[in-house]
């Protein structure tokens, strides 16, 4: 089914009643996909959120008179006179959202966790009036719940014109307690330090960070398209500052990405002799830590004015810096004995493989191009500084140089995200974002399905 990705997971630890509840949540998630597909259109930078013939300037002009035009939860259409008007999501999809909302109410009736019921009922209401703040606050203040469940318009990546409109998505899973406990310890070890902040920046302090690793059963909408392996919500900086944020790692999606992309890429682009030093287990752990570090770092790099200042370039810097800062922090973890050298190397290797993955993904789905641009910046930077050697489509990393590079790149990205202007950020992207750094490996990568 389009816009949906299902994962096989073992649900035997759920009670009969919990299984019924779980199915209700999955049914609700499934109904999100058609709404997402009506928003998605990668032929236009504004997807289906704005009329195709409307220019950026015309939309901005209309928004000055009617701020709802640039609301996160409206479609922009033309009325009979040609004037731009805003249609709220909850009116555009009234019938569909009513069915989803009812399923959430039914699931709430089945839950024995009062706070989870409260969250579901509040979310059911949010879908019908586009007021999501209340249900997000309940989600942030309560839990951890047994079920990992998110539904609604959340990510703005489809809107490449203004980075404003939220696309529908949902996921359903349940907590892996053991792995969550281990991840929690890892998170605490990272967060002991206090990063020095650039003067003049509007750094947001995130009060707390919840963490969970889920066995996910379904992705629907944007998340099915992007196949995230982790996420850190909410996106609203003000909410994050007041109530903290929650990080979820999707075990099912990570396993699928590791086997389908990261590992085959490792085998395709690295020297055969070099490959022998790393077991599949080392690399999987590296991939898990890579995404954990990335998501934790998202809480450390929020600047109140960054989205307004960097506009459509913001997601490129936000996503890339979260990867780079996460790896940079590993240097200290290694020195503290939290991980050994091989584990640290595996994280670096998996970061490089993830860079290739984003490029491959962007060819299939242009909506993830901002990730691919970030990946190209990192890869070009590594190559230019001599941290990667290449010959005949085979590469060898120099880990010591890679770490020096990561520190330098981290310093630059911090600058752009904290205080840099749009023009400076654009210039930096133009200098480092050539995809040739990946294209050179095309012949080795043809075995990976996306290039076929």
């Amino acid at each position, binding site marked *: 089914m389009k816009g949906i990705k299902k994962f096989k997971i073992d649900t035997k630890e759920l009670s009969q009643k919990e299984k019924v509840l779980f199915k209700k949540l999955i049914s609700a998630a499934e109904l999100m996909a058609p709404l997402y597909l009506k928003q998605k259109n990668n032929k236009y930078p504004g997807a289906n959120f704005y009329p195709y013939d409307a220019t950026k300037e015309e939309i901005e002009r209309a928004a000055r008179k009617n701020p709802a035009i640039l609301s996160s939860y409206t479609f922009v259409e033309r009325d009979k006179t040609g004037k731009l008007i805003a249609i709220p999501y909850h009116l555009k999809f009234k019938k569909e959202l009513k069915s989803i909302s009812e399923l959430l109410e039914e699931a709430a009736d089945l839950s024995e966790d009062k706070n989870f019921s409260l969250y579901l009922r509040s979310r059911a209401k949010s879908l019908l009036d586009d007021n999501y703040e209340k249900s997000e606050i309940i989600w942030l203040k309560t839990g951890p719940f047994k079920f990992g469940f998110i539904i609604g318009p959340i990510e703005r990546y489809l809107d490449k014109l203004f980075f404003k409109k939220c696309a529908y998505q949902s996921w359903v899973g349940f907590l892996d307690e053991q792995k969550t406990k281990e991840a929690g310890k890892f998170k*605490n070890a990272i967060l002991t330090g206090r990063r020095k902040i650039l003067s003049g920046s509007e750094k947001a302090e995130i009060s707390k960070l919840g963490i969970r690793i889920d066995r996910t059963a379904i992705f629907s909408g944007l998340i099915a398209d992007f196949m995230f392996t982790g996420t850190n919500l909410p996106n609203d900086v003000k909410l994050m500052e007041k109530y903290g944020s929650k990080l979820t790692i999707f075990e099912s999606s990570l396993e699928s990405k590791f086997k389908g992309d990261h590992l085959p890429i490792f085998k395709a682009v690295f020297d055969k002799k070099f490959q022998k030093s790393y077991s599949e287990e080392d690399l999987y752990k590296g991939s898990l830590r890579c995404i954990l570090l990335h998501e934790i770092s998202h809480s450390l790099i929020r600047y109140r004015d960054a989205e307004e200042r960097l506009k459509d370039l913001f997601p490129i810097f936000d996503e890339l810096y979260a990867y780079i800062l996460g790896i940079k922090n590993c240097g200290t973890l*290694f020195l*503290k004995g939290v991980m050994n050298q091989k584990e640290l190397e595996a994280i670096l290797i998996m970061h490089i493989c993830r860079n290739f993955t984003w490029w491959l993904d962007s060819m299939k789905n242009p909506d993830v191009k901002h990730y691919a641009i970030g990946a190209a910046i990192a890869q070009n930077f590594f190559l230019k500084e001599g941290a990667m050697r290449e010959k005949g489509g085979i590469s060898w990393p120099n880990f010591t140089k890679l770490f020096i590079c990561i520190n330098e790149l981290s310093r630059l990205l911090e600058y752009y995200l904290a205080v840099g202007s749009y023009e400076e950020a654009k210039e930096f992207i133009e200098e480092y974002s050539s995809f040739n750094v990946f294209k050179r490996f095309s012949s080795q990568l043809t075995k990976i399905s996306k290039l076929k």
Partner: protein
Amino acid sequence: MTEEKKFYLTKEGLEKIRKEYEDLKELKLAQIREESPKILYEDINFLGSKIIEFENIIKNAELIRPPKKEKQNIIDLGATVLVEINGEIDEFRLVGTLEADPSNRKISNESPIGRALLGKRVGEIVVIKTPIVNHACKITKIKYNNIDKP
């Protein structure tokens, strides 16, 4: 004759190990007397080896004590240090490997940073060199709190 490895522990850490040791011995005796539900053969073996391990630790334990006042400006085991490293300000306590718990700011004396900082003073900049990561670490404060007096 090879020297036996010393285990550096705080008083609290040693007490914890003694308690676990006594509990395991109790459990083993209960098994012999058939006073507790039977456990698997592999688990009995594991129990036995754990008891031997704890006995060895207790026998070779060396208590971490704060140094004399005139030497408290030098980093030793048990010191809580404030450092600037990798663009961050960080604070942690140096402990023996058995008590290391980086998620609770307890760092092993055998870790690269632990080894590099031992014997250093406030104001010193220590370059920690490893085959993969090289960082300069500036020591800004040393204190000896919450450990037993000599």
